[in-house]
């Protein structure tokens, strides 16, 4: 029976692939592919639930044969079902199905009909990976997939400026949570000496689990990360309803429940997490109160409730949190789906019941407080600015100091260093010319510098891409110098990167030759004329950053397993490198292919839309 868990991964995967077979005009085929996938997955959840209830264990486990085993690295699919999975599975199964049916005619004739259904199928895959994951590795895969589908769905209207800008903004934050999770998982591996299953979690006396909480906060839009949820309301209403109204935004709560054994024995941590929740609720309610647009109002209202869920989880009321999640998810997705009708509903109401709000005479202090809160809330407590100023801006400034990397001579030097590094990999530490530890660190620093330059590059898309490509080799040689990598490991790591990197170079050259836009100064929207090049380049981006389902993803896992527990600097640098690598790759993609098309022979949206 547990084998059915495995189907929860396979079905959405098959559905996603199948949906690629139809042209976008085949709406019925696309819809039924999605519907059958959702129904099938939901049915299996139901069957599993029944089985879970009748059998005596509180947890169902599934473990696939190992795909990969070498040294201390193994890779297999570990799945699990417990009460959390049951509740999340039911709610997501139900909402997913409803959204699929709702979207059938809602999305009719949208040029992105196929993209939409592919994206929600991919979303289901990511979601199932998280909900039914048996350990952090599985969960991490789902986490990344959901991040990328968010990018696709927020930026669904890719011919306009704001969706692209906001999709990029949100995915940057999501990527941060991915990388934090990656580091947190690495630390748990190091601490427990293996990949621990969710069924065997224990208390963990290390501040490291704070990373998990940070990850959950970002994904569930807790203070100070709340504002991304409002920015995410760019796609079709149905995708906003499934993602930001309900499922995606509650995933942080799921993670919080999963890692609760780590901290639940410490009262101080409980208080901390509860405080995060309470602050979020207060801030979100104040922002909700001044929201004059319907979707953002629902978004912040949802965040406020999730804040309360954090409190519930903090104090161990997991079941209450689960029920709260289910209710809130259903309520908010319903409210979002019917949000356009609010116009008629409220206006019709006003025709009969309108009363002009009176300016009540209030105490001076109260007025002062209220005005302050009002302005703060309209500004969304400066949360957007805060993220930019303290998260991204420092890196941009930092990278400006390293412009010289772009010089030809420096690039030759880099190649020489890389070559030396590569040769050193095969020389034993005793006979090596250079200290391997320092060499490894230096190579990683260079990898990071390359990536961060690519991230702020403006003049040449090709150069930015080459830097990303190159940095992967630096990462490999860096780790290879610290630990011995065997050729199979190297092949796994490089296979995806080589293909994706080369493909990326070729595709970029092609688009530059065709359109003569080689810089990254503004958005060019070339996907309008070159959808195939655009799509392939997007896949190359996923390939070069080691998206799940690519061999590099496994490679990254292997690489991480080679880093020892004390090498904090290494892991931090590596994390930053992976963080900016994906952001930089998506930035190249966005600038060249998305946004308002540069050519004006057809209708083009205003920048303000």
């Amino acid at each position, binding site marked *: 029976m547990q084998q059915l868990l495995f189907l929860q991964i396979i079905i959405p995967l098959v559905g996603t692939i199948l949906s690629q077979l139809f042209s976008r005009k085949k709406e019925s085929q696309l819809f039924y592919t999605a519907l059958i996938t959702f129904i099938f997955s939901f049915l299996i959840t139901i069957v599993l639930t029944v089985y879970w209830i009748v059998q005596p264990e509180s947890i169902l486990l599934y473990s696939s044969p190992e795909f990969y085993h070498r040294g201390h690295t193994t890779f297999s699919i570990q799945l699990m079902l417990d009460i959390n999975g049951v509740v999340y599975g039911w709610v997501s199964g139900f909402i997913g199905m409803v959204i699929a049916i709702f979207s059938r005619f809602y999305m009719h004739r949208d040029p992105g009909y196929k993209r939409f259904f592919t994206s929600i199928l991919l979303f289901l895959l990511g979601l199932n990976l998280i909900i039914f994951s048996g350990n952090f590795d599985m969960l991490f895969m789902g986490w990344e997939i959901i991040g990328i589908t968010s990018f696709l769905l927020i930026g669904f209207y890719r011919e306009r400026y704001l969706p692209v800008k906001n999709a990029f903004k949100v995915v940057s934050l999501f990527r941060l949570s991915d990388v934090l999770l990656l580091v947190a998982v690495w630390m748990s591996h190091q601490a427990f000496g293996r990949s621990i299953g969710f069924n065997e979690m224990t208390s963990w006396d290390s501040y490291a689990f704070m990373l998990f909480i940070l990850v959950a906060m970002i994904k569930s839009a807790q203070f100070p990360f709340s504002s991304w949820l409002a920015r995410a309301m760019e796609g079709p209403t149905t995708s906003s309803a499934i993602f930001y109204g309900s499922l995606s935004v509650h995933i942080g709560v799921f993670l919080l429940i999963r890692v609760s054994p780590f901290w639940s024995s410490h009262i101080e941590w409980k208080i901390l997490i509860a405080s995060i929740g309470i602050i979020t609720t207060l801030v979100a309610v104040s922002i909700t109160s001044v929201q004059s647009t319907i979707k953002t109002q629902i978004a912040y209202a949802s965040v406020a409730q999730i804040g309360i869920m954090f409190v519930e989880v903090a104090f161990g009321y997991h079941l209450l949190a689960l029920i709260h999640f289910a209710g809130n998810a259903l*309520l908010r997705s319903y409210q979002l789906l019917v949000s356009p009708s609010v116009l008629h509903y409220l206006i019709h109401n006003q025709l009969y019941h309108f009363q002009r709000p009176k300016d009540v005479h209030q105490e001076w202090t109260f007025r002062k407080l209220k005005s302050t809160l009002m302005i703060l809330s309209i500004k969304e407590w400066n949360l957007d600015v805060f993220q930019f100023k303290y998260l991204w801006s420092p890196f941009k400034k930092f990278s400006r100091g390293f412009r010289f990397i772009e010089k030809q001579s420096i690039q030759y030097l880099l190649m020489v260093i890389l070559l030396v590094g590569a040769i050193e990999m095969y020389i034993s530490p005793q006979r090596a010319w250079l200290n391997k530890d320092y060499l490894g660190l230096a190579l990683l620093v260079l990898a990071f510098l390359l990536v961060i330059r690519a991230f702020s590059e403006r003049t040449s898309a090709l150069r930015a891409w080459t830097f990303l490509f190159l940095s992967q080799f630096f990462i490999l040689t860096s780790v290879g110098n610290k630990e011995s990598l065997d050729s199979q490991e190297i092949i796994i790591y490089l296979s995806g990167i080589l293909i994706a990197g080369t493909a990326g170079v070729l595709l970029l050259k092609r688009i530059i030759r065709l359109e003569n836009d080689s810089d990254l100064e503004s958005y060019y929207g070339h996907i309008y004329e070159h959808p195939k090049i655009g799509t392939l380049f997007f896949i190359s981006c996923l390939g070069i950053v080691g998206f799940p389902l690519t061999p590099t993803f496994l490679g990254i896992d292997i690489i991480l397993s080679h880093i020892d527990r004390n090498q904090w600097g290494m892991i931090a640098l590596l994390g930053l490198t992976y963080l900016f690598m994906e952001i930089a790759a998506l930035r190249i993609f966005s600038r060249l292919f998305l946004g308002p098309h540069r050519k004006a022979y057809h209708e083009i949206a205003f920048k303000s839309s």
Partner: protein
Amino acid sequence: MIRKNNDSFAQFNEQDIIMSLKHYLPTQTPIRDFIHHNTLHAFQNMKFFDAIFKASKIFGYQVTLELEDYRKLFLLGRITKSSLEKVLADHVGEQALQEWKYKMFHETYSISNSFRIGRLRAYWKSAYGVDLDNLVHPLLFRILCSYLDQGIAIWHFPDVDKGFLAAVRSLESESLSSFFKTKRAKQLLFSDQTTIQDLLDLLVGNAELYEEYLFDQQFSHHGWSGMVAVVEDQPHTLLYSKKISLHDLIFFELLLEIDRITDQLGEDWKPLSVQNEIPVVALFAEVPETEYTTIMMLWQKSFEWSYYDQVLAGISNVASRTNCPLQQPPTFQAIFCIDERECSLRRHVESIDPRSETFGSPGFFGVEFFFLPSGGKFLEKLCPAPVTPKHVIIEEGGQLPIHKELLYTKKTHTALEGFLYSLAGGFIAGVKLMMNLLRPKMTPAISNAFAHMGEGSRLVIENTDQHRMVQGLQVGFTIEEMANRVEATLKAIGLIKNISSIVYLLSHGSSSANNPHHGAHDCGACSGRPGAVNARVFAFMANHVQVRALLFSRGIDIPKETQFIGAMHDTASDIIGFYDEDILNESNKNRHLQNKEIFENALDLNAKERSRRFASIDTSLDMKKIRKAIQERSVSFFEPRPELGHGTNALCFVGRRASIKDLFLDRRAFLNSYYYSIDPTGDILFGVIKPLPIVCGGINLEYYFSRVDNQKFGAGTKLPHNVMGLIGVANSSDGDLRPGLPLQMIEVHDPIRLLMIVEHQPDIILNTIKRLPELYEWFSNEWVHLVALDPNTKQFYYFKNDSFEAYQVVQSNLPVVDDIHKLIENAMEMETNHIFHATQENIPVHLLK
């Protein structure tokens, strides 16, 4: 600060620039009233093609289809060779014909995307590295939306009756937090002396550039600026009135700009014209005609005439048939709105009962008034938008519509109540969602055309006391006033004899769910509202004994047993509701029952005809199943196309029904009944024709522009729309308001101008339209095409260069259809909504057998 020099003081006239801005900004009112109008009304004093190409050069609009699209339409046969050659010959003469023809088909043109707007403000990015739009827009829109909000937010913006700037000042002065980041901007805000000119001195520096700068600034968010301008001039368009002015918006925006620039660059930055050499360019300077614009004009005209010629050929075909006029009074008569969506219903009614007679008249039936619903707090205008009524119709009694819907309450947004709601309400939400997917039905959250009036309510229509006033309006109409209106309406449509025992007044409205644009589907002649009240009011007037006595003395003899009955057709759900049926006498009651049956059957056919364009319905299904599916569509939350509104409208026929009765026009014609022989002077015609360009031409041009540039003129696709402050929609949380029509409404539309065909002698028509310059402008500047159909000779005359000239139909044989159902069932369904595919869904003109 830059010292003011006297030169700049002389050149900068704030009031003039604000007036000019208002002229060019979109004039769409808050969205609950959706009134169609010419999107480029600001250019209406120019000839159509000069106007659109000028607007395109200045504002960067797309104003025609793409060149490649026209070429494809030719290959498809939608643009015919004969029409194309005729258009070419008219324009370039026979000699240059081949050369131009070659250009039309084969020349490539590089289309520059350099338009004038935005040039000046772009210097901030290029010369200072400051992206002002990103820094200013999100916050500015949020503040504006909070200020104008009609009832979404839970907290209200204070002091909204003092004006926008005053309110911001009072909020800022009381708050510890601020919208501004620098002291400099805040000081400017609170200084009494600061003027717009001062702020422009700081930002721009050269007064010659101020006008351009303000245009750049306001057109970087034309949606919000347009809304502010409209609310300033028509404050009653908001239920929760807010005082605001374009001046205040500009002032505040300039302040925010100064603030953000100072925040980015520090205190030391120089105005645009001081730091940069900026040439002065006149934004509205002449735009020369180019070969490319000529080519586009030729293509567009060919596209239009390929269709017009078909229609005219059809009419001449009908004219050659012999019609025997009805000898006895028809079984019943029904006056419909001129709306082109009623075109098919009328055809079906007439085909089911050939002895019935239908008329078309603007759907307010000539009775203009404000309506005060029972228990209502606001007056609603029920007549064409430009008219300002002096009367009010009060509704009394009746079952009040239910207003509450559980999960729409704002209590779900607070912390504690939200907690309880999400625990309990969430599961109800799940059930509701499922129910709406499986069995959609009407709820208070759905815009219901029939909820406009309470069920079984009474209307106060007759004025018995001239002094009875409500809000400065006379309650009801006196006998004389009633008679005048009934007389005018009946004479306009020629219904003055042979009146049957029941005359229906069929107004229309539209129900839809999840549709902020529902007002655009209602009756355009009733200011975008359902017309049921007007139908009831007119019926009451025409039934009034004293009114009839007066009418008799004016030559309209309404038989004693004749009764008028008001009704409304829901154009989305295809339901007709009748009002005041209890006044019918015994014999009319029986007739009415039979007539109802006829309407029912006609609605079946109408639903079937409409269903061919709906993906969710199989047109070959059983009639009753189609009817049910159509009804469900109108109350389905997941259906962004409950109906297609005025999509495909292209014609306006003013004349006798008999002249076009045998044509299948595929719901593309506004039909206004008019009987030339009782109007030898054109006096009646003047009243008939006067509102038509504004109503029909306005609808047509709004569809035209939203179709050719759905991104800039239109509202884009509906699917991501977010309701902003109950006054409009935007695409997301911080986007600009999107006026215009959404994609889902214009997909089926072929962008061609309205062809108005009037059945009368050309010289009389010419004299009539010349009586009013505003009316004449529509035709002489070619925003609407005008063709006269001489009733005696059956010859067509096309109005061109201020005179009528004879028009010879090019096409001779039109397809004949004997089974409309087959035609409908076999009609193409568009593959995509690109014009090349979309137009194939539109069925060419057919002759009915």
